[in-house]
């Protein structure tokens, strides 16, 4: 498992792996928003938590189709399916690699971009915490979506159509927690819910992912 994780991380970070692309995309979306809604500080700081969360979600979506597609093309996915580790573990490792290469960098970069949106400085910590707590769910759900569409050529659009509705609860609780923090309310309830969704998704979805992969490899 660790060897597979290292391999995936290496593939993602080396040239052509698209490691930086998600981050740059995140930056661009955040930069584009003020052009769209106007530069007033009050409005921007009000919508900043939501923008950061939606942008992070889209950036995570961007790299999903690479999770299994390349391995499927060159046949290493079939090798992984016959490897001594169970396919469920492969699903977990793939999701973990995706999280380490997108979720974690996004969470770290978010406060920097929060400055651009005049996000209340007291909320910086909360943004990092919610993103760190929520992005594993995004990665696991996304891995499931990627496994569903692995056999389909040009499945990228379909992938987003399937995965985005599944992201709704994560997005709601993540953004709500930050919004409550900014508004001076207690963010604990949405944080707990967010953690619950992540824990549930990480625990259960890899089984669905593995089942779907088996169906696709049959």
């Amino acid at each position, binding site marked *: 498992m660790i060897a597979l994780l290292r391999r995936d991380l290496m593939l993602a970070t080396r040239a052509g792996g698209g490691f930086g692309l998600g981050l740059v995309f995140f930056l661009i979306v955040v930069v584009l928003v003020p052009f769209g809604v106007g530069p007033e500080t009050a409005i921007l700081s009000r919508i900043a938590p939501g923008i950061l969360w939606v942008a992070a979600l889209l950036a995570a979506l961007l790299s999903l189709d690479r999770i299994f597609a390349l391995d499927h093309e060159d046949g290493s996915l079939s090798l992984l399916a016959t490897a001594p580790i169970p396919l469920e573990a492969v699903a977990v490792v793939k999701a973990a690699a995706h999280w380490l290469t997108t979720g974690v960098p996004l969470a770290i970069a978010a406060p920097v971009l929060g400055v651009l949106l005049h996000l209340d400085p007291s909320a910086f910590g909360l943004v990092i915490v919610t993103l760190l707590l929520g992005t594993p769910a995004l990665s696991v759900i996304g891995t499931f979506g990627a496994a*569903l569409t692995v056999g*389909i050529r040009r499945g990228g659009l379909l992938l987003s*159509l*399937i995965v985005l*509705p599944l992201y709704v609860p994560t997005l709601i609780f993540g953004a709500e927690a930050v919004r409550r923090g900014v508004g001076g309310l207690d963010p604990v309830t949405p944080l707990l819910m967010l953690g619950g969704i992540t824990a549930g998704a990480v625990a259960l979805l890899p089984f*669905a992912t593995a089942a779907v992969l088996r169906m*696709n490899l*049959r």
Partner: protein
Amino acid sequence: MSMWEYANPKRFMSWTGPVLPWAFGGAAVCLSVGLIWGFFFTPDEARQGSTVKIIYLHVPAALMAINAWIMMLVASLIWLVRRHHVSALAAKAAAPVGVAMTLIALATGAIWGQPMWGTYWAWDPRLTSFLILFLFYLGYMALWAAIDDPDTAADLTSVLCMVGSVFALLSRYAVNFWNQGLHQGASLSLDKEKNVADVFYQPLLFAIAGFVLLFFALVLLRTRTEIRTRRLRALIRREGQ
């Protein structure tokens, strides 16, 4: 003989053939009774005026939109457990009908909302979760359309339906948490003291029965079409070799 025998495609075709006209006829009768009674022979409501009559389309459509998804979930489970092809095809057949019901519910709600709430759309939990349900339907249908091999498609969409159900439910409670409601609460419950007044309730029951029968008939018809398509495909493949 067990109930599963009826799932054999050949048997399914033979018993649904005669049932189909009855289902369509029943739907037509119930819908005409419910709608004509509801539209022309019920009084206007004190505050809502005649706009209240949209209830005869809105409520049954919304009810069927949710029940169609539940039916798809059950059919998907049956497919995954027992691998009856008819159930996979029935799930596939129900999706577009469910989408239509969702759209009817959303559209009639918007038409009613404009004079009553002063807006076509509000980010109310019920409205929002219906919109999300609509997106789930679209994703489900898109996945069916994208995969060539029918068995793989049935497998994958079944899993998506199951996972989607969990997340649709989660979204339902998440949006409850996220915003306050504008939509009125349940008023047709069997266990509540205060429900819709009987004058409106009786035609509504007919309309609901009509929608249920219509859904049943449409799903049967679409399933039969799917089975025929499948047979045709098999024939073409055999001839081609």
